[in-house]
């Protein structure tokens, strides 16, 4: 038996969390060291897994499959493919950074560290599970640490925000649970086998479900994931949660938890319900396009810098959903790439806003001004990240958004045209924020603000560097995403009459007149 890498990725942070609880709460340093070592060890294992990952293969790798509860058909199945790979990597990268950024959390540092690690474990579990119930458990489990992080270490209206976040996403999950159980039981009725194994179910469901049933189940899954993304108009929990969450919470919330929604579409909705997916794609495309434009407009008017970034996430995630429901190789590639890229750049933006808050105890844009002069390194990095977030070529954001838009353009031209205008709006709200916060002459407390410390730079620079690297050389990521995406698109094509367009260059073209000549014969 080979070493169970993926199970380790789930257990390791959990073990670290338990270890921290064993240390006395007064020994904050030890707690932090244990937390950081755990997070870095998890990162190490993840990188080892990444190095070993077979590029060019579509299927699940590092699979482990153990019976858990044979009566109920629930199994411990974990595996990774191109769709989940970079979410796992992102999780492993963001957790140590979130811990490092939270060194200033003095109150109940022990519980804080433990919750972050539990969150990492839950997210690892959610991205790796191939059993629907197992996924659901981790999906729900991730809410608990995030709830406590917001309610325990948040700002102003943290109780309200935490509760809203919890109830709202829970309400969505209820639909998901119903959907999961229904699919599994219908499958048992049809075949006699009770299983929640996505690999089995996705082979059966496209043909096995009655069209109307498939449509209802599609709706149930979609609502759950749409709340999580969040799609317009189900988004209002997000700005509240983000604004009140501690920095580490925001980084992980934006970087990973929102991606559970888009990941859910990719992993479950598209493969299980290809027919309704093709038929109702326009609904999700419409909502995503509205989200892109609406998120940008509302972001522009926010008086609170953190809220502004929260709304910008709605716009970015709109590009992801647009790419997914474009149902083309480029669209899905772009969507997954954006999921990764958004985690990097928005992570940096939230980190810097957090550092600002620690210095000035405000996040109101009107309270700032001229910070670029007072803190040139911070200003320069924020401006750079703003441009990365705007989708400037040379940064990872461009690769993802461009592919998502291109993919959508091939199948749903006008949606892509409207969505592309979001690129202009992104420049408007971010550069306006930069102007108000960072340009001008600093006055009062703004004039004496400290520039970023080495620790803070350590948080920010790797993420930004990665975004820059992937902007110029996205191949390592695209090559690993590609085959799995192709498998999903092919699966949809085989299950439905849908055909993904694939324009080809004139030289490589066998027959631009191909279909016509066939008709002639």
């Amino acid at each position, binding site marked *: 038996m080979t070493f169970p890498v993926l199970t380790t990725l789930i257990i390791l942070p959990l073990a670290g969390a338990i270890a921290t609880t064993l240390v006395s709460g007064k020994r904050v340093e030890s707690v932090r060291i244990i937390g950081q070592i755990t997070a870095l060890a998890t990162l190490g294992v993840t990188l080892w897994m990444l190095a070993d990952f077979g590029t060019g293969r579509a299927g699940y790798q590092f699979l482990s499959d153990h019976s858990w509860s044979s009566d109920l058909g629930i199994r411990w199945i974990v595996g990774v493919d191109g769709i989940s790979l970079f979410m796992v990597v992102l999780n492993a990268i963001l957790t140590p950074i979130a811990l490092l950024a939270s060194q200033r959390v003095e109150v109940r540092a022990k519980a804080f560290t433990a919750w972050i690690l539990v969150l990492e474990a839950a997210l690892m579990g959610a991205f790796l599970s191939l059993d629907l119930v197992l996924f659901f458990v981790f999906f729900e489990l991730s809410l608990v640490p995030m709830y406590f992080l917001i309610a325990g270490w948040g700002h102003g209206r943290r*109780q309200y925000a935490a*509760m809203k976040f*919890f*109830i709202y996403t*829970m309400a969505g*999950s*209820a*639909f998901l*649970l*119903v959907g999961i*159980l*229904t699919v599994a*039981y219908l499958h048992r*009725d049809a075949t006699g086998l009770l299983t929640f194994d996505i690999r089995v179910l996705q082979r059966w469901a496209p043909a096995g479900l009655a069209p109307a049933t498939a449509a209802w189940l599609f709706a149930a899954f979609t609502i759950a994931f749409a709340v999580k993304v969040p799609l317009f108009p189900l988004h*209002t929990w997000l700005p509240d949660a983000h604004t009140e969450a501690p920095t580490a919470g925001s980084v992980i919330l934006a970087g990973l938890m929102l991606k559970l929604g888009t990941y859910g579409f990719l992993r479950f909705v598209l493969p299980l319900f290809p027919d309704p997916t093709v038929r109702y794609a326009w609904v999700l495309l419409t909502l995503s396009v509205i989200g892109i434009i609406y998120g940008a*407009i*509302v972001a*522009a*008017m926010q008086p609170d810098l953190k809220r502004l970034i929260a709304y910008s996430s709605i716009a970015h995630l709109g590009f992801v959903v647009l790419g997914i429901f474009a149902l083309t*190789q*480029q669209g899905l590639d772009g969507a997954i790439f954006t999921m990764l890229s958004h985690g990097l750049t928005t992570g940096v933006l939230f980190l810097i806003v957090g550092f600002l808050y620690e210095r000035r105890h405000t996040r109101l844009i009107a309270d700032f001004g*001229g910070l670029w*002069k007072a803190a040139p390194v911070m200003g320069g990095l924020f401006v750079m990240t703003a441009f990365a977030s705007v989708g*400037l*070529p*040379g940064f990872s954001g461009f*690769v993802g958004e461009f*592919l998502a*838009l*291109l993919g959508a*353009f091939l199948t749903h031209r006008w949606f*892509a*045209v409207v969505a*592309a*205008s979001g*690129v*202009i709006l992104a*420049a*408007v709200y971010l*550069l*306006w924020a*930069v*102007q108000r916060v*960072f*340009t*001008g*002459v600093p006055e009062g407390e703004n004039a004496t603000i400290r520039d970023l410390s080495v620790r803070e730079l350590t948080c920010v620079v790797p993420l930004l560097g990665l975004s820059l690297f992937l902007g110029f*050389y*996205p*191949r390592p990521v*695209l090559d690993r995403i*590609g085959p799995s995406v*192709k498998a999903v698109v092919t699966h949809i094509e085989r299950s439905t009459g849908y055909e993904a*367009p*694939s*324009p080809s*260059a*004139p*030289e*490589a073209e066998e027959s631009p007149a191909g279909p016509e000549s066939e008709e002639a014969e």
Partner: protein
Amino acid sequence: MRTLDLIWLVPAFPALGAAVLLLFGKRIGEPISGWIATGLMCLSFLTSIVMAVAFVGLPSEAEHRHVVTVFDWFASGGFEVKMGFLADPISITWILFVTGIATLIHLYSIGYMHGDARFSRFFAYLNLFVASMLVLVLGSSFLVTFLGWEGVGLCSYLLISFWFERNSAAVAGKKAFVTTRIGDFGFMLAMFLIFAHLGTLDYGAAAEGIGELAGGTATAIALLLFLGAVGKSAQIPLHFWLPDAMEGPTPVSALIHAATMVTAGIFIVARAHPFFEASQVSQDVVMWVGAITALTAATVALVQNDIKRVLAYSTVSQLGYMFLALGVGAYGAAIGLVVAHAFFKAALFLGSGTVIHGTGENQDIRTMGGLRRYMPLTALGFIVAWLAIAGMPPFAGFWAKDEVLAKAFFHGDYAVWVIGLCAAVLTAFYMTRETFLVFLGNERFRAASHGDEAHADHGGGHHEISTESPTVAYPAAPKEPWLTHDPHEGSPTMIAPVLVLAFLAVIGGLIILPFKGIEILGHFLEPAFEGVKPIYPTSFLAGFGLSVLAVGLAATGIAVAVSMYRRGLEDPNDDPIDRRLGALGRVFGNAYYVDSTIGRLVGGPVRAFADWTARVVDQGIIDGAVNGVASGVSAIGGGLRRLQSGIVRQYAIVAFAGVVALLVYVLVRSL
């Protein structure tokens, strides 16, 4: 072959400079970082020359394009883009003048930026700016060009708002980026269309497939690309960012106007000319937008009082000429004007930078005059460039502009030709006005206490400065306080570039002489525009007649201006042009109120709408509905009101409800 494979070095040198200076600039400090940047820029220029020589030396006629692939950039399904550079006559022409002029501007900046707190940072941005432009012109596909295109946009933002402590600079940078982004939106859509229909973004492969495109698609692609060009090259209706762009340090203006930014629009139309050739509609649009911009911007330039603002509108106008030529199909003439314009406009901007520098940061031409006595070399350079832009033979501007107008005439576009001639007269006028008000005529820059003859002439002491300008929005009134010392000439590193550029503006005409057999640039560019129908004059006499007419009209424009400004201004607040134009002057002075109208719209209704969306729709309606549902549920739940203690119970309830629903469903199904 092997030499051309190294063409990536051309953008690599300045890119390296940018990286080094961004990371270590502060430690390197002034002036070494300036010399590093200038040195690398110079290396890039030398490499460009080597590349050009190697390119000309290519063996056969067929080998007029050479693609170098550095690495694979994108790969997603059938969408593959290589990070590749293309050497062809167009890109070779561009890299030569871009690197050459950029080197001079770098050199100039060492003196100009002396003492600035962010000296090294400035050179880092400058290097990055040029590197981006070089990627733009060397890209072997639309996407690589777009990388440079957006890089140019980023650097224009950073450099225009370089002195970001000043709010106007910060706003101008943002304005430039956002406005050009509207054009970038068009560029992106054009790329989507090209890929959707041709399956590639590679220039070579796309050009081959154009024959298969439906006419409407070709028109759409061409017009979307042109939207991108309109943004970058500041044509109507996206022209309004450029005059504000002078908020940046003056060398940046020179770079933007001459080398690195605004010619990008001309470039993309020339590069993508097969799409435009395939659509008559798009060519007409390009031609008319160019013609209208050329004339309109020239009228605005007539009454501007800011030394750089005159030049800025002049650039908009000159770019209009270039688009006019592109629309006519006279690509060689357009590129000829690009090169000639680059020489004289860079000279004019650098010259005006020296003036600003030497007169205590004064930019108002109403309070200058007679500066030739204090900065004779700069004056010499400026005057040569003035004659060039005014279209006087034998300077480069004459040959270039004459060529554009002649092509329009012989193409049968007489209306456009007449518009072009009118703009030429205006150009001659406003450039003469500026030159005379700055370098000749009476001295109007002295403070009252130092009152000299010039001012004693009219009642001693200086004039009351009216705070309200009747005509021009910016600057509202002549600058105060005035100089208490003599204006001074720039340092040698500042004078030399101006003189070199002025020299080029004189002899630059040699490469674009319109005589058969010696039209060096036209002949060099020919292979790049294979298949484009050349335009020839109907006879030598007709061509000659047109030239005489053009020169005659330009000379008239100069003569009128000289008669008005020969002695400078009696009173800085009383410009004869304002009196003569009357109400029209106000319209010109405010640039037809386009900018202020847009400003009012964005600041008013647009902002109100966004605010309404954020407050009423988002917080009121959508979030209100959510909270309404939540309170409704908890009201029904009664005892569950106390949310803090009720998490587990709520979870249980919801999960329970789900399970019940599921069981009911399964039961019903299996019955």
